[in-house]
């Protein structure tokens, strides 16, 4: 089981990071994101920014949220590799070896989460370039990465559980997109929750993206740290990992 896991996990990483195009996009995208989205308030009066986001710099406000929402696309991207493996038959090659479906799921979920974390240092560097300064202790850095990792594991598991039982490749994509939007916008990742209507605030209050965004934001802005969020995110990751393991083990289908 260890052998199969490490083989499949490394395969996930190698396949991504060997592709120079994927690497380039991975590096360039955070800069573009901050440049475009972050600059949209460039000429706004500082008082407006502060009242809108509750922070002096919109980029400092945005960075933890952006990192959190991008774990959603990380999860979706991860489940796409499952669809690909099914379409090109490679899933059959894996299944005609003594590899359990649960291990296939685990390697995909962890592979995709690891891939997602690579964005973290790049994004932080991009933020530095745009003038954000960081005053985090090592423990805080670690906690921030850990929170994002939990988020990535959770979403990867969620999307993998959606793709595993399906033999067509369109339904999972449509379903994933359907889930993504409310999760992204009904969170305080991109906007200040204080301006939300009550129903959006209700979604936001349980949305793991909110928990991760708020935790990260407290680190960047130096406000009081809601450590409990880390526990919430760990529970989220574990629960979805468990659900994904069961769903994939039972219903991972190629035929």
């Amino acid at each position, binding site marked *: 089981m260890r052998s199969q896991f*490490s*083989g499949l996990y490394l395969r996930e990483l190698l396949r991504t990071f060997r592709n120079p195009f994927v690497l380039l996009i991975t590096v360039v995208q955070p800069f573009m994101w901050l440049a475009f989205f972050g600059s949209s308030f460039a000429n706004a009066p500082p008082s407006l920014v502060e009242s809108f986001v509750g922070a002096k710099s919109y980029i400092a406000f945005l960075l933890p949220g952006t990192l959190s929402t991008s774990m959603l696309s990380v999860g979706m991207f991860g489940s796409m590799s499952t669809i690909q493996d099914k379409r*090109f*038959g490679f899933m*059959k*090659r894996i*299944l*005609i*070896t*003594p590899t359990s479906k649960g291990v296939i799921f685990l390697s995909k979920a962890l592979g995709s989460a690891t891939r997602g974390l690579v964005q973290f240092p790049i994004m932080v560097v991009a933020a530095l370039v745009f003038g954000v300064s960081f005053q985090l202790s090592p423990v805080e850095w670690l906690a921030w990465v850990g929170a994002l990792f939990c988020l990535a594991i959770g979403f990867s598991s969620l999307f993998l559980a959606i793709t595993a039982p399906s033999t067509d490749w369109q339904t999972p994509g449509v379903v994933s997109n359907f889930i993504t939007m409310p999760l992204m916008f009904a969170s305080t990742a991109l906007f200040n929750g204080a301006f939300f209507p009550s129903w959006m605030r209700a979604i936001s209050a349980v949305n793991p993206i909110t928990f991760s965004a708020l935790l990260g934001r407290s680190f960047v802005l130096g406000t009081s740290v809601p450590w409990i969020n880390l526990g919430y995110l760990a529970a989220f990751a574990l629960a979805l990992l468990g659900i994904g393991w069961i769903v994939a083990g039972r219903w991972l289908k190629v035929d």
Partner: protein
Amino acid sequence: MTAPAIEVKGLTKRYGSAGHGVVALDDVSFSIPAGTVFGLLGPNGAGKTTLIKVLTGISDISAGDATVAGYDVRTQSMAVRSHIGWVAAEVILDDDFTARENLWLQAKLQSLPDWEPRADLLLKYFALYDRADDKVSQFSTGMRKKLEIALALLHQPDVIFMDEPTIGLDVGTRRMLWDIVTGVHREFGVTVLLTTHYIEEADALCDQIAIIDFGKVVAQGTPSELKARVHGDVIALETSRPIDVPRLTAIPGVQDVRPQGNEWMIRATTAEAVLPSLLAAVPAETVRRISIEKPSLETVFLELTGHRLGQDEPMRDIRKFYAQMRQVRK
């Protein structure tokens, strides 16, 4: 006597719900002695790939029993999978990886710690050693196929499954693959179950053949046993006008006359002996084509199934179409 490498009893596979789906395998039984090459010969859609999917554990069994390498396919699936190799009809490799990396991954999946010496040996055996560190996306079809066979052999399996090993290959590569199948079987001592819709392939490679049609095994035996089952020759006759069937049947030496597509199939003890009387009975100007077929697996197939191999796709589609119609109406 050693235990059979594969034993299948009353194996049935149904796709879709009972009564509505397609019965891809219908009460199939056979036994394959260890160390032999067994061929499953049948047209497109006969159920060949389904049989491999079921025996390798990719698909569930609907009814019946199967053991592979001594393990029960239903209850000991993991054990089965560490004792089998699989070569897909469409070559399946990781195109982002080199040949050696594909072998590495296969070794990981089979939990082989000391895989490298064996991998080198296989790479050399298949003349891929010099290209071991090239991405397989740059390989020719023949090379890819060889690498796939190397992957299947890496963990020293007891049985390897080859689904239509030469489908879509040019004549030269097909010859090379035939040599490889024979060589692999001899040198590595594995039992081979291959499927094919090429009669000459089954004839050339297999110790035993099962002829499968519409999910049923209609005959099995060694190629020569099967050929001995047809007595006499077949004269295929195509005419522009209807023929006088009773008159032809009355010719001494003619066993029977039956339509087959737009041809007539006339079975005779010896074709040459009846030909003069036959031609006298059919107006010469109406004869479009006439040919004589000596006993071969082709005539065996024709005799057993009433149709020729590879001439029947439209009919099969109709069967599937009806199955779908039934499902829609439900």
